[in-house]
């Protein structure tokens, strides 16, 4: 090969790099390893994580321990889906393009909005993208955001806003729900968009339609972040006046993966179609009249419009969106609704069961679907330690993000959490709280088992 090129060595080819910029030493990294050794090494690291097999997982906060059906892996692991690039050559990418089209259809159905893209990175950055769209659509630079919106979404929106230059105003919660009056007061003629989440971060089902009216009045867009698993039973954002509905797609066919990769979904009204971020597949036909699919509306995109693009996204999360689509097809129309109902019923049981525990009370009484907030009469972190030692991840400590709820615990339910496990959680919470109250005794007891939990 060197002869064909006309050089004596590969080094010659690297001579275009100025000598002082050549590293001239090996990287300070370990030597290469055999496949078996790499496997053992990573298995050893994985063994030091307390995953949902090792600890019964009642943690949610945006990502949930749902059961991912086996066909999702079987299909997403096929080379033909796993290894191609973004479908720039539609003639040889019909599989991926049709999946996008089917996915867009499903997300439009779920959200009740006519336009969906093929997916974005994940939830919070999708919220920030909605802000960018709203600015372009309204030529305004002010966002009014409910504190019921996921803390990560709020922070990400702020990070982006610093860049594209917008102001973010937060509106608090009352009894678990977004404070309607405060919201109405905050929205004005300069407001580009109002951001809500439903169910909100505390699990409460919001009165989206009512809350949204403030946005409508002032010509601001209504952006609703939704948990897709609740859209089988909750009124779709599109029917509540949302201009944009988006969210974290993980509950649909994606594993927890310590937070990613998953996907974000993003749906909007027809008016916004040419301002949408991300890839969009469209139906068309070929020269012989055969039905086919292509990337539509590419005139929005960076590879065509460069600095004038409506967004900078290129590589997104296509494979994760496929997983979501397969999961939805597996559940099917009836199954999807049933799963929603199952979550409501089990969660209602869990909420009552836990509220009845001594030292535990509800943080709010608002209706919920699959997650709810409690108030504990003992330090939350200590209680979590004790539960962890018993092999239970009891929930998400609200103090992490809500100073006003230092005593708050957010508990999530999936179809994997059995009644028996819920009862066990109640038992564990109860005794942990008792122990914590009973001072001294506690201290000695905790640490030891706590370590164990870490293994």
């Amino acid at each position, binding site marked *: 090969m060197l002869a064909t090129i006309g050089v004596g060595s590969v080094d010659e080819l690297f001579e275009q790099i100025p000598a002082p910029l050549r*590293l001239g030493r090996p990287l300070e990294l370990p030597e290469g390893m055999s496949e078996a050794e790499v496997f053992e090494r990573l298995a050893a690291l994985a063994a030091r994580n307390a995953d949902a097999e090792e600890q019964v997982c009642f943690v949610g906060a945006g990502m949930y321990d749902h059961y991912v059906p086996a066909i999702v892996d079987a299909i997403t692991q096929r080379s033909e889906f796993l290894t191609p690039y973004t479908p720039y050559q539609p003639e040889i990418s019909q599989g991926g393009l049709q999946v996008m089209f089917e996915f867009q259809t499903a997300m439009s159905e779920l959200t009740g909005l006519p*336009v969906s893209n093929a997916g974005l990175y994940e939830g919070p950055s999708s919220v920030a993208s909605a802000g960018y769209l709203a600015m372009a659509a309204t030529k305004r630079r002010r966002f009014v955001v409910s504190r019921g919106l996921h803390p990560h979404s709020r922070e990400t929106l702020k990070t982006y806003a610093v860049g594209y230059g917008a102001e973010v105003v937060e509106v608090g919660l009352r009894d678990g729900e977004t404070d309607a009056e405060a919201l109405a007061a905050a929205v004005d003629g300069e407001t580009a968009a109002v951001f809500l989440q439903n169910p909100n971060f505390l699990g409460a089902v919001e009165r989206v339609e009512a809350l949204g009216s403030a946005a409508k009045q002032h010509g601001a867009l209504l952006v609703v972040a939704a948990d897709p698993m609740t859209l089988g039973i909750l009124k779709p954002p599109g029917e509540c006046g949302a201009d944009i509905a988006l969210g974290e797609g993980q509950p649909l066919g994606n594993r927890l*993966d310590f937070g*990613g990769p998953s996907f974000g979904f993003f749906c909007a009204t027809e008016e916004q179609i040419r301002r949408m971020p991300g890839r969009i597949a469209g139906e068309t036909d070929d020269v012989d009249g055969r039905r086919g699919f292509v990337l539509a509306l590419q005139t929005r995109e960076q590879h065509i419009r*460069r600095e004038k693009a409506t967004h900078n996204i290129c590589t997104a999360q296509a494979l994760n969106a496929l997983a979501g689509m397969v999961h939805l097809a597996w559940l*099917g129309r009836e199954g999807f609704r049933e799963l929603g109902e199952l979550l409501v019923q089990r969660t209602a049981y869990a909420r009552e069961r836990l509220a009845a525990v001594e030292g535990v009370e509800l943080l709010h009484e608002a209706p919920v679907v699959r997650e709810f907030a409690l108030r504990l009469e003992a330090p939350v972190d200590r209680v979590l330690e004790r539960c962890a030692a018993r092999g239970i991840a009891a929930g998400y400590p609200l103090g992490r993000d809500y100073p006003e709820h230092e005593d708050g615990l957010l508990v999530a339910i999936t179809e994997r959490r059995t009644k028996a496990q819920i009862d066990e959680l109640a038992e564990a919470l109860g005794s942990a709280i008792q122990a914590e109250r009973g001072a001294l005794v506690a201290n000695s007891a905790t640490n030891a088992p706590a370590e164990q939990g870490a293994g």
Partner: protein
Amino acid sequence: MAAVETPMQRERTRTIYEKSKPGRRAAVLPDAEAPARPLEELIPADLLRAEPPRLPEVAEPEIVRHYNKLSRRNFDLDSGFYPLGSCTMKHNPRLNERVAALPGHARLHPAQDPKRAQGALELMWLLQESLGEICGLPHVSLQPSAGSHGELAGLLLTRAFHADRGEERSKVLAPDTSHGTNPASVTMAGYEVVKVATNVRGGVEMDDLRAKIDEDPDQVACLMLTNPNTLGLFDENIAEIAALIHAAGGTLYYDGANLNAVMGHSRPGDMGFDIVHLNLHKSFSQPHGGGGPGAGPIAVSERIEPFLPRPQVVRREGDNGDGPSFDLDLDRPKSIGRLRGFQGNFGVFVRSYAYILSLGADGLAEASETAVLNANYLKARLAEGRAADRLPIAFDRHCMHEFVLSGRPMKKELGLATLDLAKRLLDFGFHPPTVYFPLLVEEALMVEPTETETKESLDAFADAVEAILVEAEEDPEVAKQAPYSTPVRRLDEVKATRRPVVRQALAH
């Protein structure tokens, strides 16, 4: 050509919705194990959905058949040569899928107490360290979800860096060869793009650069560069470029999409860059998944570090004798904040760390050597044939990991556009190179073979290009009507944008 339809062309495709039959389903769900109360008792009726969404109603066997069938309508990296320039379509080791799927990774909740996610945090820390060493920059954030996300992060870091010194700057310089995401990110970050010209050697035109800086040095926030650039050429003036930008007070941003050319050979940090993004789905073997997932970690210099996104994975030395521990550091007052939820695309980190462990220091350097060797060999092979005149190399020097040809003569002399060549290549069983990018090369054809291709595939590709040029000399129509053997033939993209149909119309 092919009057008869291929078997795949014959079977018109149907969507999963068109295979739906009321009452069918795959899922069986556990029962609620709880008193079944009417929903309305638990949630106000006016907040409930009237009709379940019209998802497909199909049993499992048909779902599997449907998506398997669709999969066969994709060309993929495991089907053949995929020299898509700038995308680094290198082999995706299956080991990486296996380790990413271990329950300790796959079922680990992102909000798990760091005390009980030590393995995951250590893996992230080790990956940060490895990438830092590869980039020659001390600090790494894994948070960005892809390259363009990393670019945005880099620009927000630049803004924060300047703000911290009480400055506000408005301009970001970028060569006309830059990738579309660069200018798009610049706009999203609230900056204005200033184009810098390319010189005859394919590098930055220094005079133009100086001019653009001198216009208003205080407004120069950043220069975004790819090196080797999208022409596959290493810019020899990089040191001087860095000096100029730094002198003006700007930051130097490295678009790492082309890192596959220089791993273990040259490091952005040593070239003077302040901020680098890497595409783990390119240089570090994360499968592209038909358009993601990927990850776009950023590596930065000391002066940028304080502004890195939150949270940051840190290593804490163990006190009184026990080993080190790992944690998520949220207490970063100067941080630009979060770019997304939780800790980033962890599953991608697992794959890329497994890849780095597999190759090791030597392996990575060798990978880049082979990538450069393959590119130069294919370039030479093409130059031996008709491509020499019909598809001349845009800048005639040794290339790094990829090279760009111009279809201009081919179009003038044979009436064959680069697009036609690309479509005809499909009939030969190849994925075409990247076309019409970079913009400054007319009828551009951007070829990146990667290190995991054999000499045989490179030769076969060169032979195919030759065959197509010969064929075109006889009858250019053949290529102009191509492809013939693909599941569908050329599609009407204009229609899809003019009257977009972006979802299935569903019956009630």
